[in-house]
């Protein structure tokens, strides 16, 4: 029903005062619009600039040392030239694979618990608090903890212990993003599932998680990229290895460890290799994150096509 007073307002001619005010207003609005847009663009540049400059500097310092041998050879003994980081690339792949296969499922499961079952429960609060604290634990402490828990008991360094250390570092990020993303799934969508007679677990698996999946994948990628470059947790766990090894119960090489060893060495040749290693590490992270994004975006229908 149309309100009569509103009708009157619509019919009223705008007076001269209103006109003048509106012109001043529109100038003011245009200026603040441009100002805020400019600030947003500036901030974006400030955010991207360090990343681009790091990448360019790595290319400048490291690209010249990259050759086929870098990807196919193990490190050369002290005093010899050449050698590569093939074993460390493989080692990083193995450790990150272990970490992801342990950390991501546990993290997502904990996130599902927090969002769907743990609302307002003591255990829920405890898990959320623990995750937040775990997120703030310095990575070297994580390395020492895993050293005490696994390495000391097993009496040797191992790829497995390195994977566990990184997995635990991934869990808080994955858990909290999964929880946050599940909370953004509208209640109406869940209710639609329940009202169709779909059991709760199935609704969570096939509807809530699927609706939240782009955000959850982003969270997993963040966690992955964060631990991919970690050195400290691996110092006392994976330990590093100058030779080929794919044995989960043996010390294993990892790119960040090899970069660390080379960077603190006194040899120029090794410094150059450290730069090349850093470049490869960043590239590998970028490639794996992009690959997951491409694969994940296929098969997901966009809302507004």
């Amino acid at each position, binding site marked *: 029903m149309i309100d009569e007073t509103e009708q009157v307002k619509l019919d009223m001619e705008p007076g001269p005062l209103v006109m003048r005010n509106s012109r001043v207003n529109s100038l003011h609005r245009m200026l603040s619009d441009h100002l805020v847009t400019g600030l947003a663009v500036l901030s974006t540049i400030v955010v991207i600039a360090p990343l681009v400059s790091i990448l360019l500097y790595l290319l400048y310092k490291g690209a010249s040392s990259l050759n086929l041998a870098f990807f196919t050879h193990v490190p050369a003994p002290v005093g010899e030239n050449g050698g590569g980081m093939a074993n460390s690339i493989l080692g990083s792949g193995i450790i990150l694979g272990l970490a992801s296969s342990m950390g991501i499922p546990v993290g997502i499961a904990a996130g599902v618990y927090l969002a769907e079952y743990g609302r307002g429960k003591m255990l829920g609060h405890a898990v959320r608090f623990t995750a937040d604290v775990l997120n703030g634990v310095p990575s070297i402490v994580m390395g020492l903890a895993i050293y005490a828990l696994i390495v000391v008991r097993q009496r040797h360094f191992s790829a497995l212990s390195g994977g566990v250390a990184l997995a635990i570092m991934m869990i808080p990020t994955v858990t909290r993003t999964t929880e946050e993303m599940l909370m953004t799934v*509208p209640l*109406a*969508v869940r*209710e*639609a*599932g*329940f*009202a*169709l*007679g*779909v*059991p709760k677990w*199935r*609704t969570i698996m*096939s*509807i809530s998680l*699927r*609706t939240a*999946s782009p955000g959850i994948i982003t969270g997993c990628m963040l966690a992955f990229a964060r631990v991919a470059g970690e050195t400290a947790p691996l110092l006392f766990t994976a330990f590093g290895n100058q030779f080929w090894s794919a044995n989960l119960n043996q010390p294993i090489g990892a790119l960040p460890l090899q970069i660390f060893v080379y960077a603190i060495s006194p040899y120029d040749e090794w410094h150059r290799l450290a730069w090349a290693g850093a470049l490869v590490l960043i590239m590998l992270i970028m490639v794996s994150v992009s690959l997951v994004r491409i694969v994940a975006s296929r098969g*997901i*229908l*966009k*809302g*507004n*096509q």
Partner: protein
Amino acid sequence: MGVGIQVENLNAWYGSTHTLQDVTLHIPANRATALIGPSGCGKSTFVRCLNRMHETNPIARVTGVVKMGELDIYKDASPVEIRRRVGMVFQRPNPFPTMSIYDNVASGLKLNGFRNRRILDEVVERSLKSAALWDEVKDDLKKKSGASLSGGQQQRLCIARVLAVDPEVLLMDEPASALDPISTSKIEDLIFELKTQYTIVIVTHNMQQAARVAEGTGFFLNGKLVEFDQTHKIFTNPRDKRTEDYITGRFG
């Protein structure tokens, strides 16, 4: 085929709020029954008690007897079984945003483990036809997301999704209140078609809508069922003063 619903002394609470008080109502099979009343009067809570959705809220509580045919839905069956037999259409269209049109319609069957493609294809086509949406979407069933449709189409998609699981009762909680007049009239035509095969309970704020589609109408006020009768009696000659005040627009 639809089935009648007998509700005896139904009480419902949200926390300490007593939202439904001693509601007794017999809903006839294969008819549309409208529930009207001001906001917050308990009519939505009432329909949510008929498919046991009320109890999905952890602070909610229900007492009383609801019988679908001979089946006592709070005693003899699990909520999941009841919800498969009593479909529900919500106020705002809520298609599953990540699923295609086809998957939305097939979701009730697929998510309950039904996998036979040929039968799924048939069910999807039949349901979309019954929901008067088939001609508009048949070319992009698997290409377009359910969320890419217009609001009115989304609501008919949600109706198709409910029809696909072959319920006996259809609950509609203000199904047209978020839609424009053209979409609304399409939904009303649809209700007219569907009530030959299903028992329909429709909550509405729009009294003309109740008069157009429903044989019986119940008036709720402050958690109580004030009056239930044939629709034309409610609108022309109500027994209760409060019903008369409401339908003549004196409050609410």
